[in-house]
C-alpha cells in the first residue's frame, strides 16, 4: 500500500509541472494524442487536489521523487517518463532508446530516417527528434568510438547541407534521461541559485521590497495553480541557459512547433510544452488551447494572452535575475543591461539631495555668460567652447578629477572642475573668471597682462597647463600611494622595485602625447609626415602628436596661386605632397647623400575633438594683416580622405561641428565671440555676458577662426 501511494505521487509530480523534457523530445503536443495528454493532465490535477486534501506536505513528496529518480538507471527512467507523457509517438522514443543498449543497427536505421522532410510532417519531426535522441543515447552506450562516429555520420548525412556542425551537435554528451525530468532540472536550478547566493548577496530581495509589481490577475491565478517552478525551469533552461546542459537542450528542442525555425523571438507556453514564433504561431496555440501565460524566450518577459500584453511580476523577475546571473557566470559574460532600481542607499541619497534638475529642450542649464574682465574675450570664448565639449563635460560632471595636490587652489584642473559646477548650477547670472585668469597668468607667463591676446594661443596654453596639472595630480597620487604602501609594507625588496618602475612611468608620462590624461585622451591626435627621397623613392616616416590643425588661407605659391574656399580645400592643401626644392635638401638614409625630396602630411590617428585653426592673422616681413575671406565649413564632416590608412576597416572618422570661435575687427584690435551647440540642433551665441539663441545658418555664415569638431562615434581602446 505504502509503495503504491509513492508511485502515484511520482506520476502526479511529472504531470503537475508538465514540463517533462522527454515530452518535448517526442513533441507530443503535435501528435494526435495531444488532447488526450491534456485530459490526463487534468485528471492528474484533480488527483493532486485530492492529495493536497490528504495533507501530504508538498516539499517532502518532491524530495522523495528526487531520490527515487536518482536511483533509477537511465534506461528505465526514459521508459517511465515516456509512459508518463502518455503519447503515441513517445513509444517510438522508448522503443528506439531501449533498443540502443544492444542494437546499434536499429538505432542507425532510425537515424537515417531523419531526412529533411522534418518541417513538413509533424509526425516525422517527432520521429526525427526521437531518432536524434536515440543516436545520442547510442553514442553513450556504445563503448567503441568507431560505432559512435558512424552514427554521427549518418545523422550528418540526414541533415544534408548542415553537414559538419550538424554532426557536431550529436557528438555532444548524450541527453541523459536522468536530466530530463523537471524536478531534476528544478533541483539544478535551486542548487545553482543557492551557490550564487553564497557568493553574491541577495540583492534581488531588497529590490523586491522597493517594487511592487504582481503581474496581472491571470498570471496570479496561474501561479496559484502551478507555482513558480515551471517558470523557473523554463526560464533557466530556455531563456537564460544557466549551464551547458541547458544550452544543449535549448539547441535541440527549442524551435517553433509550427514552422521549425529557431526564430529570433520564440515564446514558450507555460501551461504545456509548446514553442512558437512571435505572432500567429504562439497566439493561435494560446487561443485554441485557452492557455494564458507564455514566456518570451529572448528576453525572458512574461506575456499574458488574456491581457494581450507583457506582464511584470516581482518574484518572477527575481528568479529571472538569478538565472541571468548564473548565465553570465557560466559564460563569463556581462550581466547585460538591467533596469536601474535604486538600492535603499541610493534612495536615501536621492532623498537627502532633493534639488534636482530636469533637462528638457529649451532649458538653459549649462549656459552662462562670462564677464569681460578687460579684454578677456579671448578667454571667454575658449572657455565656452571647452565647457560645451561633450567628453570634457562628461569627465568633469562625473567628478573624475582626483587632485593629489593639497593646494587645490593652484590646480587649473580643479578650477575647471569648479567652473563646470558653476555652469550647471542653474544660475543665470554672468560668471567672473578671475581665478581662472589668475591661474593661467601664473602658469603661462606670456599671456599675463591686460593686453588683447590670441584665442588660439590661449587655447593651446590652456590645454598645456591642464595637461601638466593632470600629470602632476596623477604622479602625486602615485607618490602618496607609494609612500603609504612603503610605510605599511613589510618586505623591502618588493616595494623598491615597484617604486622605481612607477617613477619611470611618471617620467615617461611627462613626455608630450605619451600620457593618458583626459586632455590627451580627448585632444591629442597623431600626424604622420612622409619624406620621400626623389632619387631612390625611399620613405622616411615620422609621427608627431598634435592638439590642433593650423590651416593656411593665403594664396598657394606653387599651384598657380589658388586661394582655398572651403575647409576641405584647406585640408587638401595641408595634406598635399610638397616639393621641398633644391634649397632644402635632406639627407636620405638609404642613399646616404643629400637629395631633393617631397614631404607629405597625413593624419595617423584623430583625436575625439579636432580643432581647426584658420590662420587669419598673417605675419610676414612685409605686412601684418588679417585675412577675412569666407571659408565654408560643414556641420558634418568625414575625415577619412585625410587619414594615413584610408582602408582601415574599423575606422569611422565622421565629425560634427560643436563650437566656432569668431574674431571681429582688425589684426591689432578686435573682439572674440563664440557659437556653441547647446543641445542637439540648438545653437547659441556667446558674446561675453550676453547669450543669445542662434540659428545654424548664422553659425555657418560666420567667418570662423577656430572650429571645433567632435567625433560622432567613439571607438574602443
Amino acid at each position: 500500500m505504502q509503495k503504491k501511494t509513492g508511485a502515484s505521487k511520482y506520476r502526479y509530480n511529472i504531470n503537475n509541472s508538465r514540463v517533462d523534457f522527454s515530452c518535448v523530445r517526442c513533441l507530443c503536443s503535435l501528435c494526435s494524442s495531444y488532447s488526450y495528454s491534456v485530459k490526463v493532465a487534468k485528471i492528474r490535477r484533480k488527483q493532486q487536489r485530492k492529495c493536497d486534501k490528504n495533507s501530504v506536505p508538498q516539499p517532502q513528496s518532491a524530495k522523495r521523487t528526487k531520490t527515487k529518480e536518482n536511483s533509477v538507471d537511465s534506461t528505465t527512467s526514459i521508459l517511465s517518463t515516456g509512459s508518463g507523457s502518455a503519447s503515441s509517438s513517445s513509444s517510438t522514443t522508448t522503443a528506439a532508446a531501449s533498443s540502443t543498449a544492444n542494437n546499434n543497427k536499429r538505432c542507425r536505421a532510425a537515424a537515417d530516417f531523419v531526412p529533411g522532410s522534418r518541417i513538413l510532417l509533424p509526425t516525422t519531426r517527432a520521429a526525427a527528434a526521437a531518432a536524434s535522441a536515440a543516436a545520442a543515447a547510442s553514442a553513450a552506450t556504445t563503448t567503441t568510438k568507431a560505432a559512435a562516429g558512424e552514427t554521427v555520420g549518418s545523422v550528418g548525412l540526414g541533415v544534408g547541407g548542415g553537414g559538419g556542425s550538424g554532426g557536431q551537435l550529436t557528438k555532444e554528451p548524450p541527453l541523459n534521461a536522468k536530466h530530463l525530468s523537471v524536478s531534476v532540472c528544478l533541483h539544478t536550478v535551486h542548487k545553482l541559485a543557492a551557490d550564487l547566493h553564497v557568493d553574491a548577496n541577495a540583492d534581488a530581495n531588497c529590490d523586491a521590497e522597493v517594487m511592487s509589481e504582481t503581474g496581472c490577475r491571470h498570471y496570479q491565478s496561474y501561479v496559484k495553480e502551478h507555482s513558480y517552478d515551471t517558470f523557473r525551469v523554463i526560464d533557466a533552461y530556455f531563456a537564460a541557459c544557466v549551464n551547458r546542459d541547458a544550452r544543449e537542450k535549448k539547441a535541440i528542442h527549442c524551435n517553433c512547433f509550427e514552422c521549425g525555425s529557431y526564430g529570433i523571438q520564440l515564446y514558450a507556453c507555460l501551461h504545456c510544452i509548446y514553442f512558437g514564433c512571435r505572432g500567429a504561431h504562439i497566439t493561435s496555440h494560446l487561443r485554441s488551447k485557452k492557455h494564458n501565460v507564455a514566456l518570451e524566450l529572448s528576453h525572458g518577459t512574461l506575456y499574458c494572452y488574456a491581457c494581450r500584453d507583457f506582464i511584470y511580476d516581482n518574484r518572477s523577475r527575481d528568479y529571472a535575475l538569478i538565472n541571468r546571473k548564473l548565465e553570465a557566470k557560466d559564460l563569463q559574460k556581462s550581466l547585460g543591461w538591467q533596469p536601474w532600481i535604486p538600492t535603499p542607499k541610493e534612495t536615501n541619497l536621492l532623498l537627502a539631495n532633493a534639488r534636482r534638475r530636469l533637462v528638457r529642450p529649451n532649458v538653459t542649464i549649462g549656459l552662462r555668460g562670462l564677464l569681460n574682465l578687460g579684454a578677456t574675450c579671448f578667454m571667454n570664448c575658449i572657455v565656452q567652447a571647452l565647457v560645451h565639449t561633450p567628453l570634457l563635460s562628461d569627465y568633469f560632471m562625473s567628478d573624475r578629477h582626483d587632485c593629489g595636490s593639497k593646494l587645490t587652489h593652484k590646480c587649473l584642473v580643479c578650477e575647471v572642475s569648479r567652473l563646470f559646477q558653476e555652469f550647471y548650477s542653474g544660475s543665470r547670472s554672468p560668471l567672473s573668471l578671475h581665478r581662472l585668469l589668475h591661474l593661467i597668468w601664473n602658469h603661462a607667463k606670456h599671456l599675463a597682462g591686460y593686453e588683447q591676446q590670441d584665442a588660439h594661443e590661449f587655447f593651446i596654453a590652456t590645454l598645456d597647463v591642464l595637461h601638466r596639472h593632470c600629470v602632476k595630480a596623477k604622479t602625486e597620487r602615485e607618490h602618496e600611494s607609494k609612500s603609504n604602501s612603503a610605510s605599511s609594507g613589510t618586505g623591502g625588496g618588493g616595494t623598491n622595485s615597484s617604486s622605481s618602475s612607477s617613477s619611470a612611468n611618471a617620467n615617461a608620462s611627462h613626455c608630450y602625447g605619451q600620457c593618458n590624461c583626459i586632455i590627451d585622451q580627448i585632444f591629442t591626435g597623431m600626424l604622420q609626415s612622409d619624406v620621400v627621397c626623389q632619387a631612390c623613392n625611399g620613405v622616411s616616416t615620422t609621427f608627431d602628436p598634435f592638439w590642433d590643425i593650423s590651416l593656411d588661407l593665403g594664396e598657394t605659391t606653387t599651384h598657380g596661386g589658388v586661394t582655398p574656399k572651403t575647409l576641405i580645400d584647406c585640408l587638401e592643401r595641408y595634406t598635399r605632397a610638397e616639393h621641398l626644392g633644391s634649397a632644402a635638401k635632406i639627407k636620405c638614409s638609404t642613399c646616404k647623400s643629400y637629395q631633393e625630396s617631397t614631404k607629405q602630411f597625413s593624419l595617423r590617428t584623430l583625436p575625439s575633438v579636432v580643432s581647426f585653426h584658420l590662420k587669419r592673422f598673417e605675419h610676414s616681413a612685409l605686412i601684418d594683416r588679417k585675412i577675412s575671406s569666407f571659408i565654408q565649413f560643414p556641420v558634418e564632416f568625414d575625415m577619412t580622405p585625410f587619414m594615413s590608412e584610408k582602408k582601415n576597416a574599423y575606422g569611422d572618422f565622421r565629425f560634427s561641428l560643436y563650437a566656432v570661435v569668431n574674431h571681429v575687427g582688425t589684426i591689432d584690435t578686435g573682439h572674440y565671440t563664440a557659437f556653441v551647440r547647446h543641445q542637439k540642433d540648438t545653437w547659441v551665441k556667446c558674446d561675453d555676458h550676453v547669450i543669445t539663441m542662434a540659428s545654424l545658418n548664422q553659425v555657418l555664415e560666420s567667418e570662423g577662426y577656430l572650429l571645433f569638431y567632435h567625433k560622432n562615434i567613439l571607438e574602443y581602446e
Partner: protein
Amino acid sequence: MTICDTVDQYTIMSGDRLKIKDLLCNRLTECGWRNEVRLLCRNILLEKSANNSVSVDQLISEVTPKARTLVPDAVKKELLMKIRTILAETDEDN
C-alpha cells in the same frame, strides 16, 4: 534542416549566440541607441495615447523600422566581424 537552422543550433549550443547577443546589447546601450529608441517609443506614446491606448504590437510595428535604421554601421560591422570569426573558428575545428 537548413544551414541557417544548423548555425542557429550550433551557436546556441556553444554559447556563442548568447555572447554575441550580450555584445550587441552592450554596444547598443553604449552608443545611445537604446536611449534613442526609448525616446522614439515615448514620443509615439505621447502622440497616440491622447485618444486611445497603444498596444505593444502596434508600438513594435511602428518603432521597428525606424529603430533598425538607427543602428550605427560601426556596430553592424563589428558584429559581422565577430560572427565571421566565430564561424571560421568552428569551421576549423571540424
